[in-house]
């Protein structure tokens, strides 16, 4: 009797779903500042960015659960958290584990922003590029479907869209700077007496 493929199919589907959610969340995050679509309110895009990241983490949880329940590849529960314990393509499964753990860290940092400070929170967000690279490599090298044309197209679209959005984000000045010259950081402000109206 053939083994039940349900969880194996779920593992593949949830892995791809997580990758799509991660990609969309990154794209939303990159749009917050560069704002190519001026009608989008940044606060709404930030909410979307967080929700997509949360959905991505949910899909990763499903991916992990399905891999444990499935019998095609033997994955233990510690194997989900500790890189190197999975015998199936150990380097590339470990890459996925590290990407997921980093993603949890970056996601959790949003709630800890006040404690760690905005600067550290933004620095930690740089890890997202590593997460995306690792998730892409993990999907291509460990994914069962990576050799299918549709899956390859998915990875190609994801990588190129993130590359374009990131380039836009860093090359094109922010929308506000385009609309008006920045007033400059008021570092050299002179003390004024109480009662004077600001210029």
């Amino acid at each position, binding site marked *: 009797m053939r083994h039940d493929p349900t969880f194996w199919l779920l593992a593949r589907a949830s892995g791809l779903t997580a990758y799509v959610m991660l990609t969309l969340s990154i794209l939303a995050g990159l749009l*917050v*500042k560069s704002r190519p679509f*001026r009608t*989008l*309110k*940044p*606060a*709404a895009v*930030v909410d979307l960015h967080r929700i997509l990241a949360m959905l991505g983490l949910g899909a990763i949880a499903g991916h992990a659960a399905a891999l444990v329940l499935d019998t095609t590849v033997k994955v233990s529960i510690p194997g989900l958290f500790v890189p190197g314990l999975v015998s199936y393509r150990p380097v590339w499964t470990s890459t996925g584990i590290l990407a997921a753990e980093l993603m949890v860290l970056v996601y959790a940092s949003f709630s800890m*922003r*006040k404690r760690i*400070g*905005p*600067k550290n*929170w*933004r620095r930690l967000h740089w890890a997202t590029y590593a997460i995306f690279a690792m998730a892409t490599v993990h999907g291509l090298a460990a994914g069962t479907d990576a050799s299918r044309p549709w899956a390859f197209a998915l990875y190609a679209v994801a990588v190129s869209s993130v590359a374009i959005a990131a380039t836009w984000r860093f090359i094109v*000045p*922010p*929308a*506000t*700077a385009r*609309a*008006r010259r*920045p*007033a*400059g*950081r*008021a*570092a050299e*402000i*002179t*003390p*004024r007496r*109480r009662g004077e*109206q*600001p210029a």
Partner: protein
Amino acid sequence: MSTHLIQIDRSLCSGFGSCLKEAPTVFALDGDGLATLLVAETADEAVLAAAASCPMGAIAVFDLETGQEAA
């Protein structure tokens, strides 16, 4: 208690809206979705928390008496 002068660097502001939650009487989002000031000066200490909460570090608060940056 000192009076605070608030400045928003709108080229940094990304419209997170965290300042509004800390000091709703001082900050608002404009039609562009970016933070704007309802008052230029205030004695409300909540502006210090608002400046600290800004993810982009776009809010500067100055002590009006000394001219020193307070947050």
